[in-house]
């Protein structure tokens, strides 16, 4: 059974063109880019090209690009660099809906003498900007706010935020892992001091990430080692993946327009058809200002894991914010921060599309969802009861 893969916010398929570009760098051109011989030097040149391609995607200069091992490392590095270079500042601001790479890092700092502000969101997942701006102080070491949310796809106004913070002289980091390749990411417009990207969300392999560090930003390395990455990140380069990342960024730039046309259209059709055919169904998050491929839908009175497993039987790969799927007992922190009621949070399903999805796949999901939902609702003791109350 060929999977119908609509879980692209979790990870994506490595683009065949990316793979092709990577393959020679495993067992043919395996030199160390730092070596003095031309066998390694050639790999070094290819890495320089990758750096230029990444820089081009976000309108940065190549020296501002640091290759890391993943989005989490980029996020952790950004926070620690800001905190370590201004040790007298003891305040960190993030949002209540950040990815664990930022959230758990901030909580760790909170246990180690830092004051952490978690900026709330409203019921549609929109950031409380007044709260953010009122929280700023001379003691703030860094503000880290994601560009777009991985669960709902809601986009935050990072351009406005970056302007305010830039004027106040407060370092700003944004986790653009979900935004890259789907929205135009331009560091000349968004005055972020640091910005994180992840390879495997944009059709590069897992195990490679990017931290953009604006020229002049105070920085200290998180991974302490050799001179690699201009002294910003020790460790021998993951050459093949870095080269793949370069190609993926080039392709992302090329396909960017498709996201807001083709992919957004597929998503809109999937969403509106499901809403039309299944009652008691809610879209989580603001629908206007959202990543083009993401929809997060709550099916009331049933539980997400059951839905996922039924979809799985048909080869449909999606994800859920329900408690049971995360291994914890509480539903997703993002949906809870938005105040999504429990009747809906436990039954939330995220479909995240990419340019590799087809019309036929969307038709298949649209056809299969209603019987699955009504089957599970027939099992649920709350379904009749809940509808009776309405």
């Amino acid at each position, binding site marked *: 059974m060929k999977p119908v893969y609509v879980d692209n916010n979790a990870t994506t398929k490595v683009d065949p063109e990316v793979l092709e570009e990577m393959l020679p760098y495993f067992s043919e051109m395996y030199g160390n880019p730092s070596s003095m011989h031309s066998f390694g030097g050639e790999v070094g040149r290819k890495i320089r090209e990758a750096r230029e391609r990444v820089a081009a995607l976000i309108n940065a200069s190549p020296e501002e690009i640091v290759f890391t091992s993943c989005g989490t490392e980029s996020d952790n590095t950004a926070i620690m660099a800001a905190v370590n270079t201004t*040790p007298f500042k003891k305040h960190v601001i993030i949002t209540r809906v950040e990815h664990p790479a930022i959230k758990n890092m901030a909580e760790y700092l909170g246990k180690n003498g830092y004051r952490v502000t978690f900026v709330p969101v409203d019921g549609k997942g929109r950031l409380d900007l007044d709260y953010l701006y009122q929280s700023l102080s001379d003691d703030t070491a860094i503000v880290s706010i994601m560009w777009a949310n991985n669960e709902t796809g809601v986009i935050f106004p990072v351009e406005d935020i970056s302007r305010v913070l830039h004027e106040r002289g407060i370092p700003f980091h944004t986790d653009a892992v979900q935004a890259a390749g789907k929205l135009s990411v331009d560091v000349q417009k968004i005055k972020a001091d640091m910005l994180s990207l992840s390879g495997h969300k944009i059709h590069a392999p897992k195990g490679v990430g990017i931290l953009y560090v604006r020229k002049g930003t105070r920085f200290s390395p998180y991974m302490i080692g050799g001179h690699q990455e201009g002294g910003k990140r020790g460790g021998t380069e993951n050459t093949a993946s870095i080269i793949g990342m370069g190609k993926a960024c080039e392709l992302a730039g090329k396909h960017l327009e498709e996201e807001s046309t083709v992919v957004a259209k597929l998503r809109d059709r999937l969403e509106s058809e499901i809403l039309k055919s299944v009652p008691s169904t809610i879209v989580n998050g603001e629908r206007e200002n959202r990543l083009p491929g993401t929809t997060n839908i709550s099916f009331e*009175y049933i539980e997400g894991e*059951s839905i996922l*497993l039924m979809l799985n039987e048909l080869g449909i790969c999606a994800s859920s914010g329900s408690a*049971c799927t995360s*291994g914890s*007992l509480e539903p997703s922190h993002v949906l809870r921060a938005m105040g999504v009621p*429990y009747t809906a949070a436990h039954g939330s399903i995220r479909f995240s599309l990419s340019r590799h999805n087809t019309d036929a796949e969307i038709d298949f999901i649209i056809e299969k969802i209603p019987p699955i939902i009504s089957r599970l609702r027939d099992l649920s*003791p709350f379904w009749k009861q809940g509808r009776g109350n309405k």
Partner: protein
Amino acid sequence: MWEYTDKVKEHFMNPRNVGEIEDADGIGEVGSIACGDALKLMFKLNDKKKIEDVKFQTFGCASAIASSSALTEMLKGLTIEEAGKITNDDIAEFLGGLPKEKMHCSVMGRDALEKAIGYYRGESEKVKEGEIVCECFGVTDIEIKRAVTENNLKSIEDVTAYVKAGGGCESCHEKIQEIIDSTLGNSVPEKKKVPEMTNIEKIRLIEEVIENEIRPMLKKDRGNIKLIDFVGNDVIVEMRGACANCGTSQFTIKNFVEDKLREHVSHDLNVKEV
């Protein structure tokens, strides 16, 4: 992804005995939407006082649905006395086992059965006995004790997997540990009594800990530390060598130096840099 047995998957995809019985002899409802799972169990007896029909409705994950379905199969043909002997382990065993994190699904089945039997016997719904320990999921000390005894649970993680207690904000973890310890007959370790020390004794001890525990570690990274003063509970130190201009020296002070001194000297010490 959870590793479910084929039997769990089969009962989930084709659940038996779904629905309601209009004139049921026993009805048991447990759980809620907020908790993430809920079960309504109903049975009817025949004139030989054996369970003839049994139906369920479940809100929850695959293992909750499978556990409910399994329970209904197990109950058919049993007398009330026999039914009352079914444990959560029996349900899990019937399904060829459940992932540990999902054992609470089998506990939910057992709880619903107990309630349904109580309903049949005309026992008025018991007010929840005991004291609520886990506020997030409304679990009492009696329920935790019972789960610990019946399933020989040894850790907080186990308790969370079986009755959900401790799976939310985690603020009850200390209490759960106490219940585990007292139920399993472990003596609760007495808190180490730190004898009151004079300031001079404290300073001597601080110097000793710095010399033996802290300095050797810092020296490994070509750093050093000097004790400057001791005021109130504040230990004033100066970081030297590589530590003096290290970006992470604040972390070293808070996470390493302060922890060591709190551990060996007094838990209320604060370490500060000159």
